[in-house]
């Protein structure tokens, strides 16, 4: 039972790492707190689930959310850059709009996938031991996306996106259109988030219109825990730290549940975790300041 919990947490760690890598791209690379995530995650779930119950191939149903997640990101990007709406509000607007859109896609608040053919049952059909298929699948997806980001963020466009988050003034003076860089970053980020949503729906056996609530905070938790525990030197280090952070976060959640907390307490735990982790660097800085003061 404990082992089951452990495997489930690690599986979840990898599948949500895909979402967390998206959050890393906006939050850390673009310096853009993008709340679209709470809408684009269930968007991906809704699309994948609806397509599967309508009889589409699990493969296409799994990858279709990438496209629509990207569109959601583009809309937030356009609201922000062309509509001159602050990033925070632009994300909230898209998120709220997506709530209605997701319900339209699903026709009802919940789509069960229990006896449907999903990408997980597809892989299970290959005759692997029972515990392996989801884990293997999610490890592969998380690592492919990590490697994709490691490559992309060192291309010419990738450097320009990073500079847009780091010093927009400077990269504009070097001839990059920072508006387009933001839109592109938001598109990729939300594509990953929606993709993760589609996978999670197939993994847990249903899509639910409320499954995105607090997703941005879960993503942030993974990013920040990863940074605190594994450090955030370069990009390659940072992306693996996000994956590690996502696993640790899910383990922490499992531990909280095992210790008797209710599932409904988890959002509070997550919020506290993020507050704690966000203040940790500050705590560290304070400690070292005191130390130099004492030394000096």
């Amino acid at each position, binding site marked *: 039972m404990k082992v089951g919990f452990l495997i489930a947490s690690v599986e979840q760690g990898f599948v949500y790492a895909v979402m967390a890598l998206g959050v890393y791209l906006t939050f850390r690379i673009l310096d853009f707190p993008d709340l679209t995530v709470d809408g684009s995650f269930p968007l991906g779930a809704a699309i994948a689930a609806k397509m599967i119950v309508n009889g589409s191939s699990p493969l296409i149903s799994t990858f279709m959310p990438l496209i629509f997640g990207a569109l959601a990101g583009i809309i937030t990007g356009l609201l922000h850059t062309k509509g001159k709406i602050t990033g925070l509000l632009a994300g909230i607007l898209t998120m709220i709009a997506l709530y209605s859109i997701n319900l339209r896609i699903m026709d009802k608040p919940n789509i069960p996938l229990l006896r449907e053919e999903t990408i997980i049952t597809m892989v299970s059909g290959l005759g692997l031991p029972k515990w392996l298929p989801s884990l293997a699948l999610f490890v592969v997806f998380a690592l492919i996306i990590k490697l994709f980001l490691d490559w992309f963020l060192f291309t010419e*466009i990738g*450097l*320009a996106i990073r*500079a847009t988050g*780091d*010093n927009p003034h400077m*990269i*504009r003076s*070097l001839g990059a259109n*920072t508006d387009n860089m933001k839109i592109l970053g938001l598109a990729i980020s939300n594509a990953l988030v929606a993709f993760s949503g589609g996978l999670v729906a197939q993994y847990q056996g249903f899509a639910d219109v409320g499954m995105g609530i607090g997703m941005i905070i879960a993503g942030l938790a993974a990013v920040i825990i990863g940074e605190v525990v594994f450090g955030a030197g370069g990009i390659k280090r940072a992306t693996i730290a996000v994956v590690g952070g996502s696993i640790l976060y899910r383990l922490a959640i499992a531990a909280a549940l095992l210790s008797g907390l209710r599932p409904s307490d988890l959002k509070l735990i997550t919020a506290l975790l993020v507050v704690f982790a966000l203040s940790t660097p500050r705590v560290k800085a304070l400690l070292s300041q005191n130390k130099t003061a004492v030394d000096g």
Partner: protein
Amino acid sequence: MLKIQDVTKYFNLNTVDQKLALSQVSIDLNEGDFMTVIGSNGAGKSTLLNIIAGVHSVDQGAVLLDGKNILVLPEYRRALYISRIFQDPMKGTAPNMTVEENLSMAMARGKKRGLRKGISRGNREMFKESLAQLELGLEDRLNDKVGLLSGGQRQAITLLMSTITSPKLLLLDEHTAALDPKTGSKIVELTEKIVSDNNLTTMMVTHNMEQALSLGNRLIMLHGGKVILDLKDDQKKRMTVDGLLYEFERSRGEKFVDDRVILAN
């Protein structure tokens, strides 16, 4: 090659805060000219450079580069032709990216960016050589984040980034003012060397009159948004600091007279 014709710029036009920042400014730069720009605080020097670079629009007038009207191009499109450096050494570089990444982005100035590798191996040797010429020990720090470097080192890298692709026009806005005097004169030295090695057409704002006189072949003085002095070659060579101060006082006097006339009405 750079023609500024009758440029007038207001800030907050038609509001109570309306401010005339440039008034019918006309300047003509030839290929290879190095113009220093002086004037008191608020004279409009930064505004002038910002208009050329595309940060601000104009209310009247034209700016031509090689005969082409560049006022229709957004800032990021002018980057292909125009490089600039600011007073704040933090502004010209991305602190969380490495020296090499910063220089690589400068190599791509104004070009279409694609999915090619952002850092090419071939450039690395060239970066090392250019950095070695700065004599700041930066050639061994290609993989360090720029944020770890001192203000002077960052400004030197900015200088390299601005000139590595030989832009048509180099705009410098008090780019040594925030540095300590020793580092500042080192950067000025480097500026002079790089500008003359590459024969770059340059406009350099400075508040140091001696510097303004010793550098370059052109000098203009701005006051209250107007060009009150425009010196070329020999005229510039003959000019002294006292002469500049005299011109400055004279323009203030005239302004004073203007004010009295207004008050009298």
